[in-house]
């Protein structure tokens, strides 16, 4: 187990380093002179020189990368060109809203997917099953920026039940969480249905039924727990979709999180903040995925701990 954990840690560290290097190099993808792009053509040459040295662009690339890594080690991501404050401070102000949205969406997804996937598997071929499959197919085909406006149209304009956007009014989180959660619920319900169907065909389920247990007990007590492992892994992977989807969903609902900060910063050409946001979101994703892997290995004794964690 220790060996497995160490191996996992090393490969996570390599991925993190790669992510940092890629995010660092983003600024070099700017067509033309980054400083000119950020300040505009009319900027004074003194201002340009100052920004150039502030961003370290006057040094060789290797030195720039080294400076970026050294800054990261001290949690220094540079300064925002717009807010004139450390990038980290700007991001920390916005992060709680995104965390709140992501957790609410996760709750929506699990609350929708568990009953839907279970009923579909237990009553295979029934109307419920058909409905669940239909929901799953629709869920993966309707993007957030379509789902969001349609929900606003129905619940805010036609019915007048919920606020259109922002985060101040009570209940304002419901629509963004639904938008983000239903897409994830669709994928989860589909996965739960297929694993549950597999588990329900196993011998120990037949034994449980033969003992005379009622169906509810069989499903809740014996089957569901065993069907959860792949679902948990998927949950970890889906978090990535959730985090990226949050960027678009936050824009749809003017939700003041990291996603809308990313897009605002792109519009303001405040690239240090863009880099910071992309880095923070990706590193969260890497961390959660590594933790999911470890949890999975820990929960399922059938998994080998020895080496080989390559794809």
């Amino acid at each position, binding site marked *: 187990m220790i060996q497995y954990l160490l191996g996992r840690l090393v*490969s996570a560290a*390599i*991925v*993190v380093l*790669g*992510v940092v290097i*890629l*995010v660092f190099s*983003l*600024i070099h*993808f*700017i*067509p033309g002179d980054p400083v000119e792009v950020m300040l505009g053509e009319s900027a004074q040459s003194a201002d340009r020189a100052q920004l150039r040295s502030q961003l370290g662009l006057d040094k060789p690339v290797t030195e720039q990368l080294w400076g970026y890594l050294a800054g990261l080690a001290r949690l220094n991501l540079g300064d925002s060109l717009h807010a004139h404050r450390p990038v980290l401070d700007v991001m920390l102000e916005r992060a709680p809203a995104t965390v709140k949205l992501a957790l609410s969406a996760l709750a929506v997804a699990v609350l929708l997917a568990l009953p839907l996937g279970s009923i579909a598997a237990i009553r295979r071929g029934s109307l419920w099953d058909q409905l669940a499959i239909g929901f799953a*197919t*629709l869920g*993966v*085909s*309707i*993007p*957030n*920026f*379509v789902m969001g*406006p*349609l929900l*606003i*149209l129905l619940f805010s*304009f036609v019915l007048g039940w919920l606020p259109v956007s922002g985060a101040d009014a009570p209940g304002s989180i419901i629509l963004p969480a639904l938008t983000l959660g239903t897409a994830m619920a669709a994928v989860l319900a589909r996965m739960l249905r297929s694993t549950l169907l597999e588990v329900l065909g196993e011998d120990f389920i037949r034994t449980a039924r033969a003992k005379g247990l009622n169906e509810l007990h069989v499903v809740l007590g014996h089957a569901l727990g065993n069907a959860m492992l792949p679902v948990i892994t998927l949950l970890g992977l889906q*978090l*990535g*979709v*959730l*985090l*990226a*989807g949050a*960027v*678009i969903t936050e*824009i*749809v609902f003017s939700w003041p999180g990291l996603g809308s900060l*990313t*897009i605002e910063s*792109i*519009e303001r050409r405040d*690239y240090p903040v*863009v*880099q910071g946001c*992309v880095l923070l*979101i*990706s590193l969260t*994703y*890497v961390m959660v*995925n590594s933790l999911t892997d470890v949890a999975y290995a820990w929960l399922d004794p059938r998994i080998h701990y020895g080496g080989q964690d*390559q*794809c």
Partner: protein
Amino acid sequence: MLTRGAKWLLVVWSVLAILAPILPMASNQVDLPHMLAAPTWQAPFGYDELGRSVLERIIAGASTSFIVSLSVIALSVVLGTAIGALSAWSGGFVDHVVVRIIDVFLAFPGILLAIALAGILGPGISNVVMALAMVGWVGYARLARAQTLSLKQREHVRAAIALGAGPLAIFHRHILPLIATPLMVEATFGIAAVIIGEAGLSFLGLGVQPPDASWGSIIREGTRYMLVAPHLVIAPALCLSLVVLAVNLLGDRFRDKLDVRFAS
């Protein structure tokens, strides 16, 4: 029945997309008297905030999503397959490095990297293609690598090596035909992802720029007038979702028919 509907929908989408430039349309023509007008016989989907026919805008948008999805898929499949197969064939250090690079790209959630790239490269259709292809090649590389790795040990490949065939010839004649099917299935689902990706970037204002139309930017502009003219959002939303749904449905059928198991 459902499959046939999906097929027809995609045929209509492609034909309209290809014919869009020569159709008698004025999708960029501003006509203020018709501003936000409701659907009529001339314009079944109504008019937008500049009095342009929403149907014509949607057809122009179909063209954008068609061009972008085909270019991105072609670029990513070629690039991904080349990198994946080469990596598996070389083995050793090269393969190790490529696997790490793939891992790094997979560490970026969803289209976040494409959003950042498109934001930094600046708007425009070719930058959208570039940003989405930079994110898209990874899946094909992983698949091609896994498939090539197992094919490398097969007897017909070893026989070809023993006969002195060069790597390119072996790849072309003995590997590519066998990995093409799973790659094509993956590419089918890839089309759906790219259509959503392009529309998503345009929705965020990072894609196609006005006055050119994209389904994403039509929805984005429509949300501002949603209360007075809901058709501005409903019509493009419906088109986008139906096309993506149709692609996904056909992808599912395609996969079931060929019984391809992914090595992911």
